[in-house]
């Protein structure tokens, strides 16, 4: 009995630092955000309790949270259905043990190590209208006399012509300055940056599949594709689930790259940029906190839904 109590104390002591960290870094800020979300507060002066007024504002179309959530869901879908398959493909390819495996791993993982702000600055140059790398590249690829850039410009001009007051036509694509292309332009660097991150997680899973299973399947005459489909992928389902959760919640929380690339509100807003605008530009800390609470709830909800979907699959 005494030994059990002593062990219990030891376990508690070892868990204490993590518990303190968890409380200080996660629980207390969430608690405070929830408290602020019921206050009318400009971040500096006196707070005033206003009940659920901030949540009413959040759910109204006043601050544009609806389109921001829609953008986040688009990003999450793109991450799940484009980024993760690419990561999985790379992980399966490298997991086979190809020549230069380590070099490719490092190269694909390298963007994860670069600061997002630096990546944003790099891509700003790529997306620069007219003289940017993307515009030059797409102007050079032509179908007859029309370049891809021209096709995109014409499409945007046609959309702008439907505005209440028709905008003068663009002559080149302002990639990050219009609602039609800005979000897609934000996704490409995200894909480029995090494909290596998911690839590394999946690669570790692929490598953990016992080689005897592969060999046995090969002896039975299975092709590489069949081995991947029927042995490797089912074996790493738990890691795929984690990757999907990271991709979806990461998209819901995305902020830095969009902030650096687009900067202007209402062009490619996501919930975090709306929260930033409310808190730090409009001094509405209460509304910003309500968005923060909503984001937490959304992230938890999506994590639970994804978990449930995978459990059902099992």
């Amino acid at each position, binding site marked *: 009995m005494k030994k059990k109590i002593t062990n219990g104390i030891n376990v508690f002591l070892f868990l204490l630092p993590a518990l303190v960290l968890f409380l200080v870094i996660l629980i207390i800020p969430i608690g405070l955000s929830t408290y602020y979300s019921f206050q009318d507060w400009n971040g500096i002066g006196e707070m005033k309790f206003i009940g659920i007024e901030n949540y009413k504002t959040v759910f109204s179309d006043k601050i544009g949270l609806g389109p921001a959530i829609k953008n986040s869901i688009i990003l999450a879908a793109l991450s799940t259905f484009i980024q993760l398959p690419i990561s999985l493909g790379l992980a399966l390819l490298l997991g086979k043990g190809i020549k230069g495996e380590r070099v490719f791993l490092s190269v694909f993982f390298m963007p994860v190590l670069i600061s997002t702000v630096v990546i944003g600055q790099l891509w700003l140059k790529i997306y620069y209208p007219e003289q940017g790398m993307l515009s030059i590249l797409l102007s050079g690829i032509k179908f007859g006399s029309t370049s891809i850039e021209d096709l995109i410009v014409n499409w945007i001009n046609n959309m702008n012509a439907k505005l209440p007051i*028709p905008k003068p036509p663009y002559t080149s694509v302002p990639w990050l*300055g219009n609602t039609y292309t800005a979000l897609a332009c934000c996704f490409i660097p995200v894909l480029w940056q995090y494909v290596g991150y998911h690839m590394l997680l999946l690669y570790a899973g692929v490598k953990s599949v016992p080689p005897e299973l592969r060999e046995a399947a090969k002896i039975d005459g299975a092709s590489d594709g069949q081995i991947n489909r029927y042995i490797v992928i089912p074996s790493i389902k738990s890691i795929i689930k984690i990757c999907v959760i990271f991709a979806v919640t990461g998209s819901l929380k995305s902020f830095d790259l969009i902030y650096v690339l687009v900067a202007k509100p209402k062009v490619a807003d996501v919930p975090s940029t709306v929260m930033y605008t409310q808190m730090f530009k409009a001094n509405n800390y209460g509304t910003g906190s309500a968005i923060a609470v909503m984001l937490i709830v959304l992230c938890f909800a999506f994590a639970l839904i994804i978990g449930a979907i995978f459990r059902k699959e099992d």
Partner: protein
Amino acid sequence: MKMKKFASVLLAGAMVATMAGCTTTTDPDQPTTPGTTVTDPANPSTPAADGEVNLTMWCIATESDSNRHSYEAAIADVTAAHPEINFTWEAFENESYKTKIKAAVAADEMPDIFFTWSCAFLGDFVDAGRVYCLDDAYAKVKDELPESMMGNSTYNGKHYGVPLTMNIVGLFANMDLLKEVGYDEIPGTYDEFIACCDALKAANIIPFGCAGKETWCVTEYLESVIEKSVGYETLNDIFLARATWANPDVASAVDTFQSLVVNGYFDPAGDALTNDEVKANFMAGKYAFYMNGTWNCADFAANDEFFAKVKVGEFPVINADKATLGQLIGGPSDTLAVAQSSPNAAVAADFTFELGRLICKYGYLDGCGLPAWNVNYDDSAVNGLTQTVASICAQAKGYVLFGDTAMAAGDAQTYLEEVAMVYGCEVDGQTFVDDLASAIR
């Protein structure tokens, strides 16, 4: 077993201690250099030994800021004159500074002296009781700093800010491009101005450069058009919440601005550009006109090749019944203030006035703005553009402070979003005023 228990307690204790160590502040004895923070942020100003006083300052004069030199020169002078003050300062990028200073004010962890924008921005801090009243210190320098320049940082009759330089929105023109279409001067009337824009467009020259990515740049155009249509008093009343936005003349003026957009006078690629990029394009000869703050005079004057081509003027009057030349957008906004929490607030207040006077002097001589303080030194070396701006201001009939500075933060954000929609042709003038009238008041 005891040993095991002891080891586990020791390890856990060490881990907790390590965590606590993460929150300890930097050694206050560490040597200081500009751009680094070494003092305890919770108590930035602490009495130093031998009667010395430590003062800290935050500002936005980063290495790339045109005001950097004036800050460095002023600080060198003022610290040489006050060896008893250990002065450290730190500069931050403009946009991130707005967030940083608000967070510092909220936590009451401000430096002794801090840069701020006047009117509503500083007003929020004053309302929260975080700013030291400068009335006593101002009384000592009243002869050098006119009361009119203190207006934007005066709340309930008390002074809370030290103005530095003042700036207005200027209409900069690339005269080489204007000459190509037959204009030797910036057009003086609105009709001539539009004719000039049409001629430029016909010659495949883009009339205006504007950074659509930074909405404050759009307001430099829009506010000038509104002011020259409805008069400065009306616009001032609206910005200062003394009148409603629901004004048909303002709606009509917004439509006038939008007609400039719809007629294709603005660079469409500007939608995706920052102000720095647009400014660089203007200096490279891509646009004929660039409306922006007169703080740009310093950068234009520093480029010999471009300086020979550029002129600055005033946006022409659109409705002569309500507006006249001399009605300008701008005024003293850049301000230094003292934290109420500073243990040396009285010393900091005197120091701030002295520093502000010198920043103003060097800033004016560099061409970064016009002096908010009286000029009692030789200013004959000031660049020609700044001198032109000075002569425009000498004829000024009235000023309207930049809208996003004059209005409270929440209102300013709503205003900027509506301006972006006008520029993006999503709403017209009537919708603009209706939206603002319902959202702001």
